């Protein structure tokens, strides 16, 4: 295949879905060869699972630009369509 951008049809989406699953299965299969080693070592356990809430960094935000990016809005709200969530 070539990797140039093009709009994707529904049929191609199905093909991409199949392909993505195939790629992940193949990758996961290759990682299996170190499975025994991984099982013996709790390598990624964290002592602290939560992080402190960071500071508010919105001080240089432009409200005007932020609203201009939303397709549907009124003066104070960005409007989300009903039943589309």
């Amino acid at each position, binding site marked *: *295949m*070539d*990797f*140039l*951008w*093009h*709009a*994707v049809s529904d049929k*191609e*989406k199905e093909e*991409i*879905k199949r*392909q*993505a*699953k195939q*790629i*992940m299965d*193949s*990758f*996961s299969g*290759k*990682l299996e060869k*170190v*499975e025994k*080693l*991984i099982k013996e*070592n709790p*390598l*990624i356990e964290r002592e602290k699972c939560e*992080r*402190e809430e*960071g*500071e508010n*960094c*919105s001080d*240089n*935000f*432009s*409200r005007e*630009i*932020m609203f*201009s*990016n*939303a*397709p*549907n809005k009124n003066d104070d709200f*960005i*409007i*989300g*369509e009903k039943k589309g969530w």
Partner: protein
Amino acid sequence: MNTVDKLKSCLEKIKKENKKLNIFLQIRDEKELLEEARKIDAKKNKGKLAGKIIAVKANICVKGLNISCASKTLENFKAPYDATVIRKIKNEDGLIIGIVNMDEFACGSSGETSAFGPCQNPSALGLIPGGSSSGSAASVAGGFVDLALGSDTGGSIRNPASHCNVVGVKPTYSSVSRYGLIDLSMSLDQIGPIAKNVSDAKILLNVIKGTDKCDSISQNNSTAIPHPPTQEKKNSINKKSLIIGMLDLSGLKVDNKIEKLISDKIEKSAKKYGWKTKKIKLNYIDLAIETYYPLVYVEFFSGTRKFDGRRYGKKIEQSAGPEVLRRIIGGSEITKAEYKGRYYYRALKVKKLIEMEFEKFFNGKDKVDAIVMPTVPRLPHKIGEKISVDEMYSYDALTIPANLAGNCCVSIPAGKLSFPPTRPGKGNNINSKKNIHLIPVGMQIMCDKFQDELMLDIAEKIEKV
């Protein structure tokens, strides 16, 4: 040259050549730029970046500019704030001239997946510039700007730097704030500089590094990078006998010519500076691609849930190209509870194994000061040429390990190789002399976490050989 003159010369070049090369997606208003340049020139105490013209990858927020990620999804998106790195550049009088092309949402290794068309490689016309920071590397290589910012998740700064014959730095993970970067994979992403030479890259890295309250994982680099280096520091580097680890590339499918070019370059450098070299073999490095992509697929899927078409224009699933969709759909599939342990957690654990393997060489009894290897294992293909997903992903086989380990790594030009087309086809006449090009090849120098200063010093020395 003052900022105004430099700006004028850059604008002239861009106007003349950008149409052909497709590097810039947006150039700022000329009057506004000139006014800003005049103000910089009039300053008594100028910042560290005064006189430098800078391009920014289209996934780093610059207030008021169109940060599209080279995607139809964000085609009309204007950044409502400055990323921390942008604020730091502006504070040091760097002049941001515009926004450059990239692979769509940084999903790509060739620069071809941009929804606005691929940008050309000024150092090898017709061949891919590399990606995903394709426009950043190409803008520097083409002489459009002095410096550029890119982002590197699995090689996205170093890969195009290698193909375009420029210097690209992936700083230590967490040493440069990502606040304002539209993420690809939050546990791997890093912003870094692209420049014509190591010295310029140092200047920009010095400005953008450091802790940031807006990026909760950011840390202070414990060692400063003085520029220019003090005499005392120069002497200490010159006296030190470094041990350079040359990565054993067996089994990694590296082009023999590339391997030889890098090996010769290192031997010459070691001889000149009195460094010791030794071959090192890293376990699990052959699993880098298989470890990286499950992490990226899942984290990218998670990160793109905000592109639902309500706050930023279009819904990503309805507007993105094939590579972005492959990652979103793949990420969605393997995020499902029944697959979580099999893909993502397994990959996280192998990531840790790879990190520990590097630590063994940087801090253990077989200690080396730096590890060198080619940046990209193969020569670039032609823009639009058909290749498999495996072939595309293999471009990053040697850059991904630094991201998985969190180490700093730089790609510098190592030399050029002649490029007769390898795949016969339309227009590819192997025997035709006019089809033979000289293609840039890059080499990587990797150091331990927060040893960015040492890494750039070594790079600067090799650059001179």
